């Protein structure tokens, strides 16, 4: 039983999210005039007034969804904060809590296919995906998990037969994945090598 996929809406205007990312280098993530990297265009009206669970605050006004990020974009952000540089593990210019949290997330993301992706790759891939008429959430899923076979693709597609995605289309999607997205890193057995893996060997 699956819940309905959220209503992502169409990307409005020419302001493609990747153009925004390309126009400012990763090191300037903190600039105030940075355009949001909205993978899915957000609805401007979603401002809700909520009680924050933080004790010292009474109300925090917020816009809940200002854009969804692929794993790669978050990894890129962490890299720009210096998470990959091992020497910063010892000399931490930032507070301990942010440090630990960033590193834990970083370590998790380095084991996903996101660590071998680049901006051009995912832009290219999502452009090509429109031939298959996939929902944006499905494209996000595919970029994050990089399915390598039909069985890996199965839990991502919702009601494929009703949407006219037959076996041929699935093979087409897989070929696109194989061609455009680099293979994920080889995850070592736990307890062994914990450093980042360079890409060795292809996916069989």
């Amino acid at each position: 039983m699956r819940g309905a996929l959220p209503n992502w809406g169409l990307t409005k205007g020419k302001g493609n999210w990747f153009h925004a990312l390309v126009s400012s280098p990763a090191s300037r993530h903190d600039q105030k005039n940075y355009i949001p990297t909205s993978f899915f265009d957000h609805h401007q009206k979603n401002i809700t007034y909520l009680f924050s669970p933080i004790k010292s605050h009474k109300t925090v006004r917020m816009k809940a969804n200002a854009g969804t990020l692929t794993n790669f974009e978050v990894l890129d952000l962490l890299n720009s904060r210096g998470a990959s540089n091992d020497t910063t593990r010892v000399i931490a210019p930032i507070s301990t809590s942010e440090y630990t949290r960033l590193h834990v997330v970083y370590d998790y993301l380095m084991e996903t296919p996101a660590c071998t992706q680049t901006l051009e790759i995912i832009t290219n891939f999502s452009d090509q995906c429109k031939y298959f008429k996939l929902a944006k959430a499905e494209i996000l899923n595919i970029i994050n998990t990089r399915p390598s076979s039909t069985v890996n693709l199965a839990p991502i597609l919702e009601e494929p037969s009703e949407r006219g995605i037959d076996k041929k289309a699935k093979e087409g999607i897989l070929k696109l994945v194989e061609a455009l997205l680099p293979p994920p890193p080889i995850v070592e057995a736990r307890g062994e090598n914990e450093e980042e893996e360079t890409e060795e060997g292809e996916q069989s």
Partner: protein
Amino acid sequence: MFCLSELEDTVRVPPSDLNLPLEVAIKKALQKLFLDKVLSIGLCVAIYGIKSIEGGFVLPGDGAATYKVVFRIVVFRPFVGEVIAAKFKESDSNGLRLTLGFFEDVYVPAPLIPTPNRCEPDPYNRNQMRWVWKYGDDEFIIDDSCQQIKFRVENISYPPVPTERAEDAKPFAPMVVTGTIDDDGLGPVSWWEACAPISDDED
């Protein structure tokens, strides 16, 4: 699984930080407030950037400066239907518990484990139960040896803070993700490594 969220909040910069550049001081105060905390929108992972700062008033009786800040944070909030790879953490008679490293409250309750299955006491670890999936003649074990377990998000819930708790209850989890592994391609990755589709008409 990550989203950007824009928030507006009043931030108090303690007097000891007032010698730092403004953005650095505010960022420090924001990190202390939001990082690692679960808001109604999800688990806050990182401060993305500050959009605007106003104010800077010093309220009477207080040495700190108070600013009204609009900023963006990266929150961990998976959407329903997202497929995520996690690691096994523990299992008991109610189901499995998986971890993502930075987030450890992913539960797969017993009804969402593929059937037919059975739960047996773990021979290697006396306190734990082990789930085994029986498919045809083969039995597949779900335990510590699985490198990666893929699950699909079914639901995210934010249980309210309990007022009273039993002594030995598990630490309170403000955000719980419920997942399922009962579908093709889900569950331990090793289950699907060498397999072929059974029939040509897939649903």
